[in-house]
């Protein structure tokens, strides 16, 4: 067991996900299956092979530094559950 129920609870918390108590065991088992598969990959000899963060043969897709209109103030706030002082109203958050 690489991952315990406690780890799954922690990761769910970081992701702001609520996992029902009844599914905890199942998730823990699936997490471990994924990690076990990673273990198999770890056994492959990757000596001299550069890490591949991207698989597409593309680089340097740039945009010129020219302003374009975005959405209007009203459009931006259309999806806000509540508005306060021209901004998205959010509950007090202490980091």
């Amino acid at each position, binding site marked *: 067991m690489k991952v315990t129920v406690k780890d799954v609870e*922690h990761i769910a*918390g*970081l992701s*702001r996900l609520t996992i029902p108590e009844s599914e905890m065991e199942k998730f823990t088992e699936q997490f471990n299956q994924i990690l076990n598969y990673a273990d198999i990959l770890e056994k492959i000899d990757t000596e001299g092979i550069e890490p591949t*963060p*991207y698989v*597409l043969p*593309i*680089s*340097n*897709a*740039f*945009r*010129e*530094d*020219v*302003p*374009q209109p*975005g*959405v*209007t*103030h009203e459009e*931006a*706030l259309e999806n806000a559950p509540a508005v*306060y*002082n*021209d*901004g*998205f*109203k*959010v*509950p*007090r*958050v*202490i*980091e």
Partner: protein
Amino acid sequence: MTNYITVIGLEVHAELKTKTKAFCSCSTEFGSLPNTHVCPVCLGMPGALPVLNKQVVEFAIRTGLALGCDIQKFNKFDRKNYFYPDLAKNYQISQFDQPICLGGHIDIEIDGVPKRLGITRIHMEEDAGKLNHSGATISTSDFSSVDYNRAGVPLLEIVSEPDMRSAEEARAYMEQLKAILEYIDVCDCKMQEGSLRCDANISIMPEGAKEFGTRAEIKNLNSFRALVRAIEYEVERQKAILEDGGHVVQETRTWDEANGVTLSMRSKEEAHDYRYFPEPDLVPVEIDDAWIERVRGELPELPAQRLERLVEKHGLPKYDASLIVATKAMADYFDAACANSKDDKAVSNWLLGDVSAYLNAENITIEQFPVKPENLGELVTLIKDGVLSSKLAKKVFAEMLKADKTPKQLVKELGLEQVSDEGAIAAIVDEVLAENPQSVADYKAGKDKAIGFLVGQVMKKSRGKANPGMVNKLLKEKMQ
């Protein structure tokens, strides 16, 4: 009592002076109505895709070269995951394990002693939105209002080595860094507005210790003064803990400017579990030698080079030159004034004297100074040429502050032209000699001081306009 050594490292966030955000085409303009420079990308709408602003890479390379860093050829971006309403996406696009610049340094000098301070890395990332709290502080607020105008504005995070050993060194590092960023024109460097922000990692260790002490990270340092005060406070706080036999806790603290203290932010450990991974929505950035060399070739004059020029070519004392080059706008003003003056040292004296006094009194910067540099240059030249005495020059200067007129115009309007016509001055000298026989007798009897009184009388009669050198010369000749 044990002697402690202070160890400081700085993390500086510099907002880049691009016209648009890092990953979308929204304007970066400061001070607009909240949520007016926003689009699906910076609002974190599902499906919206980021595209990198080329100017961000350009500015990052320029900054790296100006700070002596190695520019990394292969660059990728990473997601830094955290839940806080200042970022709508719930992650910040940043660079984690492969920053664009590695190594580098800033040279400072304190009391004539030079020191080189290392730079560990510089990486590109996006700024977050701004939370405005309903109450005076976050803890007294029931809710906050989020403005995403700043979300996505490009930042460079410049991380120093823990090389500083005093608040003074930290301040000198910040001043140098600010000057360099201004000279290379990548950042506005307005600490109060937040375009240049500084966090300080501070620890102390007993003299002779091999390992650094536990550090505290201090945030919210938005002025040089705050940086210095926070370091001084924090060092004393940590000393008191160690002297008491306690342990310093590794934590993030915020500087409370009003009360002059640092306060624990009591962040949960979880908040720093960022689970970085490569940003799948962006492709890598590859920088070749041609690009690096092109940017190197376009680097403008840096503060250290400018200082050298002011000393070597303009003949300023090193200390005076260092004050002038500290702000790019001041150095530019100096150059523009010198272009129209015959006396560079005098221009410098005016800038560091009367001009700086005026700026301080009015609490404005040199950019807002009402006198055009060419007019200050002209004023200096009028003194050099003997048209104005330095006393009358101050009078003209006072008028220049009130109206945009050239010194020559004002000299005419105020009737202040210095009289250098020997005949006219001789006539006044004769008058004064006739009116003050006692002083003449004193002078002839060897009391050299008496001539000062006579010069004063001539100046008074000429309403300050007689050339003092000529007055002196004529008085001496006539009393021989």
